[in-house]
């Protein structure tokens, strides 16, 4: 816990310094201390809220209804089978589009027992964050991470099994390592990464 606290305080401090530097560089003519800022936690919170809302609407109002009416199903190989992407795939693909847009912000779904290894945690921070969220899934894990000389703010939000479709797929997929998910279990997290200049 101490380590987290140190990490938090370090991150917060770093963020503060960066924010001040960013504001100063953005508005060089104005008074430094008075420039309004926005914390990366809040930015990540906004993005997460939007992501959640979009995926919920896609899941409940599009996929469920189309499947109930028998119009089209959501399947994993949706491209070959001319079907709908699964809600998880929806989020992954939208993440790719966001990345391709060049805005710098990235997000992806990660889990400790993923069907595909590419969705496993890439770093210790991610793995530990997920482990922490498994235990106390109430608040996101945030922190500053670095790749070489590059530094990023990363927030990991817990992702729960909100519909039976999620656990059915993960419990039955041949490549799935864990097959005892239940509704409302934390299946993984949404990792949002924002570069810190």
């Amino acid at each position, binding site marked *: 816990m101490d380590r987290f606290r140190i990490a938090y305080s370090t991150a917060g401090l770093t963020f503060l310094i960066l924010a001040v530097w960013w504001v100063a560089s953005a508005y060089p003519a104005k008074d430094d201390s008075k420039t309004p800022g926005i914390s990366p936690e809040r930015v990540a919170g906004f993005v997460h809220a939007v992501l959640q809302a979009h995926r919920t609407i896609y899941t409940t109002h599009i996929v469920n209804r189309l499947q109930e009416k028998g119009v089209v199903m959501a399947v994993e190989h949706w*491209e*070959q*089978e*001319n079907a709908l992407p699964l809600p998880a795939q929806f989020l992954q693909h939208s993440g790719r589009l966001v990345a391709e847009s060049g805005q710098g912000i990235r997000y*992806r779904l990660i889990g400790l027992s993923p069907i595909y290894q590419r969705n496993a945690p890439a*770093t210790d921070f991610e793995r530990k964050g997920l482990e922490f969220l498994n235990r106390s899934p109430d608040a996101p894990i945030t922190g500053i991470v670095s790749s070489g000389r590059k530094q*990023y703010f990363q927030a990991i939000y817990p992702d729960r099994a909100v519909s039976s479709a999620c656990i059915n797929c993960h419990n039955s997929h041949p490549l799935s390592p864990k097959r005892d998910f239940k509704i409302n279990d934390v299946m993984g997290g949404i990792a949002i990464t924002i570069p810190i200049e």
Partner: protein
Amino acid sequence: MTKATQQPSPVTRGWRLQTKLIVSMLLVGVVPLLVGLGMAFWQGSQEIHEVSGESFKALATEAARKLDLLVGEEIARTSRIAADPMIVRELERRRDRNLKPESGRYPIKQDLQLKWESKDPATVKMITENPVANLLREYYTGARSEPDELIPQVVRGATKMLFVTDTQGHLAAALTDKPPFANGEFLWWKGTFNKGIGQLYIEDVYFDDLAQTYAFSISLPVMDSLRYEAIGVIHRVIDAKEFFGPSTHPIRFGKTGHVMLIDHRGIVVSCPILPTGVRLSDASIIPLVTQRESGWTSAPSDGHGGRSSSIIGFSPLPETSRNTNGALEVGSWHTFVWQSSDELFAPIKHLFTWMTVFGSIAVALLATLGYLAAKRIVTPVRQLQQAAQSIGRGELRQSIEIKTGDELETLAEEFNRMNRQLEAAFTGLTDQVTLKTQEVQYLQRSTDQILDAVPTPILIVDDQEEVLYVNRTGREAFALTEESSAGGRLFDMLPVEPSQQQHLRQELWSHQTTGMAPSLAGEPPAAVEHIRDPLVPETATVHRSRQAELQLGAHLYRYEWFRVTGRPGQSDRVGLVLRDTTDESRMQEKLVQAEKSGSLGILTAGIGHELNNPLFGIMGLGEALQDECDPARVKSYAQDIIHHGKRMAAIIRDFTGIAAREISDQRQTVHLEREMDQALAAVMVGLDTSQLTIERTYAGDTLVMALPDQLKQAFSNIMTNALHAMKNQGTLRLSTTVGEKTVVATIADTGPGIPKNHLSKIFDPFFTTKGQGEGSGLGLTVARRIIRKFGGDIRLESVEGAGTSCMITLPLMAPASSSKEASWTASESRTLPQVSRS
């Protein structure tokens, strides 16, 4: 019996019965056979299509999964290299170094590139011997793999190049010195790096100049430790044939059946038959087999150069296709399962061959059996046909022997029965015909005999004036033999003058054409015909003899045409009957003479008788006068003598009145009514007419041709009789009625009438009902003779007790006469009866 027809049996038109039977049996058998075989063949080939297609599809799907896993394994193996922390760290370091905007970096890179391309040993060593390259080598040789996860030898051999680039595409590490230094412009690099996001990129098969082979490549991004962005690309070039060959080539079935792998352009990635890198021979089947879902199709060609229709199973590689050329939309790989159609359809062809063989055998059998069956049916039918022909000719003598035990046998029996009945019927008919012929001959003979017995010549002439028959009298008359009688020309037989010939010909023609019996005389009957007075010498005989009479030599013939109905279909003929009147006319003349003499005798006797009575009275009175002295008596006697004398004078006058005036035969136009009035006036002289009423009802001014004195005489005689019958009391009615061509003058009295027994004799000469000396009995005789001479006639109608009417008919003269006497009665009333009393 009719003539037997000896013509040969009629040639049967069209197909004969036997042919028809065979053909119909063949049709009945062959058509269903062929239809059945055809349907079996069609159905069989359909099912072979279906079964082959489904199994090809299954095989293609299975092969696709297998190849997908193969590629997937290779990707996983490569991604393990890409995720190696050492490589990540090294590439992060390179990235960070590139971030620093240091001057002279590019020249360094360019310098490096030049050195690499010129195979500068230091540079080559720097790239191929650095830690990353060493790491790659370790992975490549399998030193880094888990103990149970050795890289198969095949895969290692197939890997032609393995190298890593940095974020600019510059070569960072490589196993060999073959790879190019700058890769930033390659599609695979751009696709994999993907603006730093990074994605798996499987390149379609291409000819790699550096590796000198057809290859495909797998490129993976090397992500930073956060998986935030790509910091390099690991690129692997793999020989397609070497990599996929071991998986696809062993899958063989039959002689030609195999599995191949193609990309979305139809270029062969791996095939046991076709070389890698060539395109399918038929571009039109590429869209059919590169669909997103697995299936099978019946394509018009096989893609291997064959143009025969083929069954092709296909299936996409699901995971590999997702990443070929970066996305599913721009490329996909497919398995292609095919077997040569010759081999595939061989069972059907065998089936077809066998069906053809069996079909031919069946047709041959059908034809043979049909021939035998038809022969069995046709032979008795032909026998029957011949029998029917014999019956038709009346030649069948023995019965038909057919023992088939079916309807044909019954039919043969019927034929026999019919033949017997026909024979019987014909026998009866022959007898009847003989009988009838005899009858006809008898009739002809008797007709000939009758005609020969007729004493007048009879000729039968046809419309060509050819004499067909002459009877015996005719032959004798015209001096013909029996042989030469028929066939001659009519006018050769009858030697007549040309004018008469013409006349006869006309009559003959009118008979021929109209069939009307012409009047005996060629001329129309004269309106006014002179009655021949027996006392007047004939003057018109020459004229009459021209009519219907023929002078042939010394003989005079009367002739008559008659019509003879011709045979059916022939024109009618005309008969000519000639009657020899030579003797008859002689007799006639003798008769006339005798009649004349007889009449004179009767007349003389009558006159004598009439005159004798008064003459003897005069003679008696004369004798008495010789002795008589008494003058009174003498006077009385003298008066008696005078009376008798008068009487005699009257008799002579009567007689001479007839005979003498006939000499003057000068007829003229007279007025009938005037003559009647004058005659009445003459008759009534010296008669007591106080109790007599005369009624006149005249039609008008009627003109007739007559001698006025004689006509007057005739009327006087009739009126005298009438008045005498009425004893000068009663009514005398005179009337004239004009008809169309005649006028009728009626003199009617109211006397006692004439008894019936006297009516027939009333016109006989000297027949009288008057007392001795009162009438000569010549009055009506004379009157009739006169009237007849003028072309008229007298008729008496009498009702006993009611009176007598005498009707005198005379031919009417044309009214437009210019006679001066025509105006005589112009002032007379013609309509009202003129009653006068005198």
